């Protein structure tokens, strides 16, 4: 068995600039293509040799095991260093780690995705999964919030999903000039307008924690129970396998019990400010 503490070398096959500070890396194992199995919602530790490691969710399609896709926003030391990668470079990968979005449990229910900013990346595999298995799910709703129109991630794909008759997509931005024709306002405002059955919906939420807090309030007001809401917690990590305690979140470890949690199981510790 591969030691989870030792990074496997992967080769960058493509770098796509998504936004001014966000890019997507396509990776394949350095020793030839081997399938890489993961579930939507899981993450890898990406190691920029000599600099450090960061947890990054997998943003590609779990059904396409050939290429491993990560979408990264440069915010600090390691993620900034990763922006320097080009096709042909090597990066270390440990994973996949963590819990997954409840795609099996959600079958038969409406699926509602509420996400903001880079939070769309960890949810993209869940979106691919629902679209590839569309008949297994009820109504499918994607609500997305970005900072400004220029910060809308995966814009072309969002437009493609919006154009499908079996998917409802609503996008909002926090700030815009008068040339923007779409919604302006925070993402929880989109919740009362979406047509889904609160008693039979599975809601997947990912974004900054404050955004998730207000989203959950709006979902509760709409009548969605905490046992139907799943959140992905992005707290800092080191080992990613439950050894170091760096990611401890109350009695849980985000790296192995999460990052995806059913909200009722962490409700009491959700407001904990630091870990």
């Amino acid at each position: 068995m591969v030691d989870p503490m030792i990074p496997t070398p992967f080769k960058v096959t493509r770098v796509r600039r998504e936004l001014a500070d966000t890019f997507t890396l396509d990776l394949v194992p350095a020793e030839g293509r081997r399938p890489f199995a993961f579930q939507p919602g899981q993450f890898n530790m990406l190691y920029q040799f000599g600099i450090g490691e960061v947890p990054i969710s997998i943003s590609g399609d779990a059904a396409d095991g050939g290429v491993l896709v990560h979408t990264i926003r440069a915010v600090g030391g390691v993620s900034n260093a990763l922006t320097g990668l080009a096709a042909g470079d090597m990066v270390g990968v440990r994973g996949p780690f963590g819990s997954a979005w409840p795609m099996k449990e959600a079958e038969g229910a409406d699926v509602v995705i509420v996400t903001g900013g880079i939070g769309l990346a960890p949810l993209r595999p869940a979106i691919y999964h629902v679209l590839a298995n569309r008949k297994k799910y009820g109504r499918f709703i994607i609500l997305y919030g970005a900072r400004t129109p220029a910060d809308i991630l995966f814009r072309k794909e969002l437009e493609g999903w919006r154009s499908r008759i079996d998917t409802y997509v609503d996008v909002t931005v926090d700030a815009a000039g008068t040339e923007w024709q779409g919604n302006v306002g925070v993402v929880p405002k989109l919740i009362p307008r979406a047509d889904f059955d609160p008693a039979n919906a599975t809601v997947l939420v990912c974004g900054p924690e404050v955004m998730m807090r207000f989203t959950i309030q709006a979902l509760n007001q709409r009548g969605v129970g905490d046992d139907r809401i799943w959140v992905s917690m992005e707290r800092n990590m080191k080992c990613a396998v439950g050894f170091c305690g760096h990611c401890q979140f109350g009695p849980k470890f985000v790296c192995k019990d999460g990052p995806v949690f059913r909200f009722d199981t962490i409700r009491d510790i959700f407001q904990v400010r630091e870990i």
Partner: protein
Amino acid sequence: MVQIEGMGKELAEHPFFDGMESKDRELLSGCAKNEVFDADEYVFREGEPADKFYLIRHGTVAVELHAPGHDPMVLETLRKGDIFGWSWMVQPYTWTFDVRAVELTRVISLDAKCLRGKLEKDHSLGYELFKRFIPVMAERVGAARLQLLDLYGQPAERRSRSKKK
């Protein structure tokens, strides 16, 4: 022109009046009329007298702020089922923002003088109306605060901004 006939039914169809007794709605309908705004037409502009309040039946409006030396900013957009315009309740009854129709927009407008007159005479009607206004206002204040946090900004920028006094 104020159309009294038929407006009671139209008010009943707007979610803002959900659960209001029909006699109260009928009273208010005396102040109501239908209006239509074309895409890019301004419903009102900052500084003008706030003589109405509006319920959106169809379409989208943008609440905008214009300041010299700055690009105009859209603060929020409102859609079918939403309401807008509080300034009719607060002296000096002057609009504090611009509101522009983003697309063809149909609204019900309620005349402010007519409304204030009715509410002055019938306080329980006033209470019924304000019970509907206050939660919307609270929700808008909450949303505006969340917007101010710049949730999706770069962590470093947000930190330095919060340190500035």
